[in-house]
C-alpha cells in the first residue's frame, strides 16, 4: 500500500468511525427523548405505568377547571368523550387554555391515577385543533366540529 493510500484509508476509517459513534449516540438520544401521544381512552385501556413521561391530549371538560386560592396549582379534566383523566398542574396556563378547548399536556401518571402535568400547551389559533387531538377524538367517536 502506498503512503497516500494508507493515509486515505486512515482518513476514511476515522470518518466512518466518527459518523458511526454519532449515529449510535443520536439513536440513543432519540429513544430517550421520544414522547408518545396518548388519549384518555388509551390511558384507561393500556394501563400505563406511573412515572413514564408522555403527552396527553384531549378536550378540557366544561366546568372542570379548579384553581387553588393561594397558589398557582390547578386541576382540570381532560376528556375524549368516553373517557377522562384528572390533570394536576402547578404553573401558568397558556393564553388559549379554555374549557372545551383542545390541549396537550406533557407529564406523567402518579400512582394514584392522576396525571401530573409539567407543561400544558394550547395552540395559537382558536380554530386550530392539534392534529393528534383531532384524530383521537375522531377515533373515540366524539367528533367536534372543527373548522
Amino acid at each position, binding site marked *: 500500500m502506498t503512503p497516500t493510500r494508507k493515509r486515505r484509508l486512515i482518513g476514511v476509517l476515522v470518518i466512518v468511525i466518527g459518523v458511526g459513534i454519532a449515529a449510535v449516540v443520536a439513536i440513543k438520544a432519540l429513544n430517550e427523548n421520544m*414522547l408518545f401521544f396518548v388519549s384518555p381512552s388509551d390511558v384507561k385501556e393500556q394501563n400505563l405505568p406511573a412515572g413514564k413521561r408522555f403527552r396527553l391530549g384531549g378536550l378540557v371538560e366544561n366546568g372542570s377547571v379548579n384553581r387553588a386560592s393561594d397558589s398557582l396549582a390547578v386541576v382540570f379534566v381532560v376528556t375524549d368523550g368516553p373517557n377522562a383523566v384528572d390533570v394536576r398542574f402547578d404553573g401558568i396556563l397558556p393564553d388559549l387554555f379554555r374549557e372545551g378547548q383542545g390541549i396537550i399536556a406533557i407529564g406523567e401518571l402518579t400512582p394514584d391515577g392522576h396525571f401530573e402535568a409539567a407543561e400544558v400547551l394550547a395552540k395559537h389559533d382558536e380554530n386550530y385543533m392539534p392534529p393528534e387531538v383531532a384524530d383521537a377524538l375522531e377515533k373515540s367517536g366524539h367528533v367536534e366540529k372543527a373548522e
Partner: protein
Amino acid sequence: MTVELGQISLLAALLTALVLGLLPMIGSYTGNRRFMAVSTTASLVQCLLLMVAFGILTSAFIIQDFSVEYVARNSNSLLPMGFRVSAVWSAHEGSLLLWELILSIWIAAVALFSKRLPEVFRSRVLAVLGWISVGFLLFILLTSNPFGRLIPSAVEGLDLNPLLQDFGLIVHPPLLYMGYVGFSVAFAFAVAALLGGEVSRDWVRWSRPWTLVAWAFLTIGIALGSWWAYYELGWGGYWFWDPVENASFMPWLVGTALIHSQAVTEKRGAFGNWTLLLALSAFSLSLLGTFLVRSGVLTSVHAFASDPTRGIFILVYLGVVVGGSLTLYAARAPKMIQGGGFAGLSRETFLLINNLVFAVLAAMVLTGTLYPLLIDAIGAGKISVGPPYFGLLFTWLLVPIVLAMPIGIYSRWQQDSGSRLISKVRWPFLMALAVGTIVWIMQPDIGFVSAAGVTGGAWVILGSLFYVVQMMTSKNRISIPASVLAMTLAHVGVGVFLIGLSLVSTLSTEKHLRMEAGDKYEMAGYTFEFLGTSIVQGANYSADQGEFIISKGDREITRLYPQKREYAQRGNTMTEAAIDPGFTRDLYVSLGEPLDQNGQAWAVRVYHKPFIRWIWLGAIFIMAGGFLAAANKRYRRKMTAKEPVLTGTKEVTA
C-alpha cells in the same frame, strides 16, 4: 377590479418564467445567442410583474377590500396601517407570494450582476432559476391564490392573528425568505455547472458571493425569529426546537458547511463534488422546510389547519427538484475535476472537520424532525421528539468545531506542522482557559458544561483576534485583507453567541408566582413590586396592564408594564411581556392569568436572564461577517479569467 389585475400579472409572470426556463436553455445548447439574450429581459419582466401582483395585494389590504377572501381573513378595519402592510405576508397565500417575489428579485439580481459570466453558463443559471419559479407560480395559482374573491363580500375582516401584530413579524419573514430563497442561486449555479460538465472550478468563485449573502440573510432571519419568540410568546424562551424552527435551521447548517467548502474548492480545487452536493442540499432543505411548514404535517406553533393538496403539490415539486438534481449529480459528478491532495494536518483538514460536523448536525436535526412522521406513517403511534435530544447532540458536536476553529484560522493550505500551529495558538488558548476558570470560580453555579462553553467562546474570540493582531504587527503586511476581517467578525460572533448561550442556560432564574397588588418578590438582587393592574385601550384590543417597580436596594431601576390583551374581533387573548433589556442581563415580567374574580391577584412570570442579548449580538456579528465577505472586491473583478492564487499558497494543477 384591480385584484383581478393581480391575478393576471401572476399568470403573465408564469408565462415569463416559462420563457426564461425554456429559451435560454435551448439557446445554450444550440448556440443561439438571441435565445440566450432573452434571459435578462425575461428575468427583469418577471420581477416587475410580481412586484405589480404584490403591490396590488398590498393595496387591497391598505384600502381594506374585504371582498378579497385573503384580506377578509387577515385584516380588520381597526388594524393599524403598519400591520395592514405586514398582514400581506401573515398567512399562507401571501407568504408564498412574498417567497416568489423574493425569488424573482434574486433572479433579477443575478441577471443584472452576472453579465461578465460566460454567456452559456449564465443562460443556464437563469433558466434553472426560471424553472424553480415556474414551480412556485404554479403552486400559488393552483392551490394558494391570494386573489380569490369572497362573494358576497365581507362587511368586516376577521383581523390579523394578534401574535403577528408586531414589529418582529414585519421583518422576520422577508429576511428569512431572502436566505431560504437565496440558496436557489447557489443551487442554480451548481446545476448549471453539472449541465456543462464544467471543467474549471470558476463556478464556485462566481457563486460564492451569492451564497454568502443568502447565508447572512438566513442568519439574521433566524436570529430575529428567536428574538421575536422571546418577547412575543410571553414565556421567555428563545429557541424551542420546534419543527418549523428546525426547518429554517437545517438549510443554515448546510449553508454554513457550503460556504466553508466553497473556500476550499475555490482556493485548492479539493472537495469539488462535495461542494456541488452541498449546494444542491441547501436549497433542497429550504424546499423541504417550506413543505413541512406549509403542508401542516407537523405539530408546531406555526402549523395552521391546511389543505392536503398543497402538501402533495410541494412534495411532488420537492421530488422533482431533489430527484432531478441528484440524478444529474450522479451522472455528471464523477466527470468533474478533482482537486489537489492535502496532508493530514492542513487548512483543508480543519475545513473538513467543519464540513463533517455541520453535515452531521443537519442530518441529526433532519432525523429528529422527520422521525415522528416516520413513526406515524408506519402506524407505530404518535410521538414527538423532545428538545433534550437536540440539546445533547449540539453540545457534543460543538466540541470538535470549537476546538478546531481557531487553529484552522492559523493553518496553511496543503500542509502544516503541528509544532508551528501549537506555538501560534498557545497564548489565546491559555488565556481562554484562564477566562473560563475565573468565570467558573466567580459563578460556581454554572457547572462544568457551561464553564467549558465560556472557555470555548473565549478561545474562539481570542484566537480570531490574535490572528488579526499578529497580521497588523508583522512587518511585511500593512493592510488586512477584507476576507480575513469578515472571517474574524463571523468567528468572534460565534464566540459571543457561545458565551451568551452558556451563561443564559445556567444562570437564568425563572419564577412563576401568584402576586397581589403590593406584593414584592426578590430575585438576583432585584426587587419586583407589583402595583396592580389597570385597563388600557389599544387600537383593536383592550388590555389589563400591570405595573411593576423594579429596584435594586433603594434605587428604582425601571418600571415595567406587561399587558394581557383581548383582541375583540377574534376573541384572542395575548400576553405582552415587558422587558428591561441590558448588555449583561434582561429583566422579564409577563402576566399569566387573573386568579380571582375582581382581578386583584395574578399569575406572574418573573425572569432574570443574564447575557441573553449576547445570543443575538453574536448572530449580528455572524451576519455582518457574511455580508462583508460577500462584498469582497475579489468577486467583482474580471470573472472569466482565472484568478491568480493568493499569496502564501502554492498552486497545484489538477
